[in-house]
């Protein structure tokens, strides 16, 4: 085991290989509050990559309802229970990661979902945390809550799948940090399935190998965002590049939201993988649950996010989500518009900070008809 630095934990930790960061790191931000669980992302991925034999049960992208949705069943709560106490102190993680708590003879603390655990992709869908009492109604803070959690591979800085593969069949691309399984080398031991705490590697029984989200790298190489980003109806996603904290660039949209405003947070940072998909955490969720999923900054991130109403730069940046198919490496916000740029600083798109309001009279005199306010 090597000693590596995990900035999400604010401390060193043990990892199977020495620290080796890519030239630039694929990163994404999902604004949970905008997700409507339409699963268009899921289908965009499914039809692009996993509609072959042996891939039927694979969802490289899925959207599950929290707190009771899981794919596969119980993927996170099972590991949380195995991991034991996960305490934080002043932003530093005091518990053990899945690498540090590996059992004797293992590289990573993990478990293999059973076959039936993949049989309920929609379990818990739209289920709230509890029953709304008769006469109850929704006013913040919500006593009863739920939210949608969209998930892809986190293309982690310290991937557990990569650490666990005894054949070295999994690699992290130095040019973009995307984590891939070498399909010519994998022999299907399913160690990666056991190790990945997010359960985003899948065994293909037709080919006898394991497969996973490839970050749509053919699109990334062309400066385009992955399929699940481009097709997102709710425009909850933005893909870009993440710097390490001490090199954060205020003009980089991912750096700005992750490092500077600290609004976007990693999912289960306590596992220790330094995942690179960041979430704007959901409103109206108890602080304890936010901390469990997103670490100790969860409640503060929600408060910061709510400032967007009065914060033009933040509002403008959030408006860039889903506004163009291109990877957004830089951004700027002026008085009226937010603009995204690609890696060569070429303009990608501009969006208004506040959408213009169009008011149409309810009667159309040219056609002599009343306009219906329904589609």
């Amino acid at each position, binding site marked *: 085991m090597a000693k590596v630095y995990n900035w999400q934990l604010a401390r060193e930790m043990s990892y199977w290989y020495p620290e080796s960061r890519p030239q630039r790191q694929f990163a994404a931000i999902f604004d949970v509050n905008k997700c409507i669980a339409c699963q268009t992302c899921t289908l965009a991925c499914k039809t692009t990559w996993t509609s*072959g*034999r042996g891939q*039927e*049960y694979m969802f490289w992208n899925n959207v599950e309802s929290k707190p009771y949705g899981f794919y596969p069943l119980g993927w996170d709560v099972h590991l949380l229970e195995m991991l034991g106490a996960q305490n934080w102190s002043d932003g530093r993680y005091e518990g053990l990661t899945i690498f540090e708590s590996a059992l004797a*003879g293992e590289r990573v603390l993990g478990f293999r*979902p059973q076959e039936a655990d993949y049989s309920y992709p929609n379990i818990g869908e739209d289920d709230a945390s509890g029953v709304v009492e008769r006469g109850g109604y929704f006013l913040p803070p919500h006593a009863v809550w739920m939210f949608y959690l969209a998930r892809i591979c986190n293309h982690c800085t310290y991937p557990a799948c990569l650490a666990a593969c005894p054949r070295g069949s999994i690699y992290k691309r130095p040019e973009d940090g995307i984590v891939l399984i070498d399909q010519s080398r*994998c022999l299907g031991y399913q160690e990666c399935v056991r190790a990945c705490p997010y359960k985003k590697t899948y*065994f293909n029984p037709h*080919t006898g*190998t394991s497969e996973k989200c490839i970050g749509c790298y053919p699109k990334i190489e062309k400066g385009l965002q992955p399929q699940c980003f481009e097709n997102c109806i709710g425009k909850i996603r933005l893909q870009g590049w993440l710097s390490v904290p001490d090199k954060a660039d205020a003009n980089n949209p991912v750096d700005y939201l992750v490092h500077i405003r600290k609004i976007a947070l990693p999912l289960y940072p306590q596992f220790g993988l330094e995942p690179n998909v960041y979430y704007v955490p959901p409103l109206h969720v108890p602080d304890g649950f936010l901390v469990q999923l997103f670490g100790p900054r969860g409640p503060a991130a929600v408060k910061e996010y709510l400032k967007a109403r009065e914060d033009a730069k933040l509002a403008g940046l959030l408006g860039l989500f889903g506004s163009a198919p291109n990877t957004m490496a830089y951004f700027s916000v002026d008085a009226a518009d937010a603009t995204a740029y690609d890696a060569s600083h070429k303009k990608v798109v501009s969006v208004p900070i506040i959408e213009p309001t169009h008011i149409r009279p309810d009667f159309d005199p040219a056609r002599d008809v009343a306009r219906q306010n329904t589609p």
Partner: protein
Amino acid sequence: MRIKHYMLLTVASLFIHGGCGQDAAKLKLAGQALARRAAQAAEGVTPLDPAWDKMPFYTAAMQLQDVTQPTLTTPGVAGIDVRGLYDDRWLVLRLDWIDSTVDTTAAPARFSDAVAVEFPTQPGSNVPDANMGQTGGSVHIVQWKADRQQKMSRTAEGTKALYPYSAIDFYVEDVPPEGPAREQMAQQYSPAIGVGNPASMHTSPVQAFVAEGFGTLTAVNEPEVRGQGTWQAGRWYVTIGIKLPAATAMTPFQVGQRTFMALAVWDGSAGNVGSRKMRTTWIPFMMEAPVTKAGL
């Protein structure tokens, strides 16, 4: 006791050690006939050929793979009975062991039963590490897997084979008409098949590999190998045939030359896969020269 230290792998010695007490010349003839069947079975002497029962065998004691992570922590198969014979073309081993469960499918969280035999690639007593060899010290490994064998006989593919009652609308790869376009599409959706991964190509129940240490296992086409497995009454019976190289080749398979083999076995029901296996250290053996009439 020589038999404890060496596996005697000749058709003649086979019957001598079988101790049938019959006429030696007839025994030798019988042995040759069996050898021919072996070459077939390399083209598969069937694993349950009654002739195997008359052959001497060596019981290899298995131990946990506890050298490299991930390890196996719960003991599994305790021992493998090994028999062998050879002729001028094939070396054939029959391996059998107790396994109460038949695991012929690799699926999510399901693993296949398997067995493997390992040899140093070079002759001599300076053998590489028995655990998959080492850098500069390569080993040949031949593995039989129940799921490879099972897949060869399946009529359905993929999920339909595993879950016959599953409902599948259609596969995109089936849209193009039969021919190159469809094959190309199928490879796109099964990339491991497209790149010829040996784990995906089920043309034989056995696969030969070469290795130079943990994590280096690499499929090879030489030596040619064949094999077959049968489960009966709580026991797997597996033959592994290895085509012998030309006599002039540098090979550990030289008649009268002491060499080594090691074994590994996987019980799918116990979650054995990859390095989670029971294994042996090196077992010395010799392909004895056939006993001639003059030598009897």
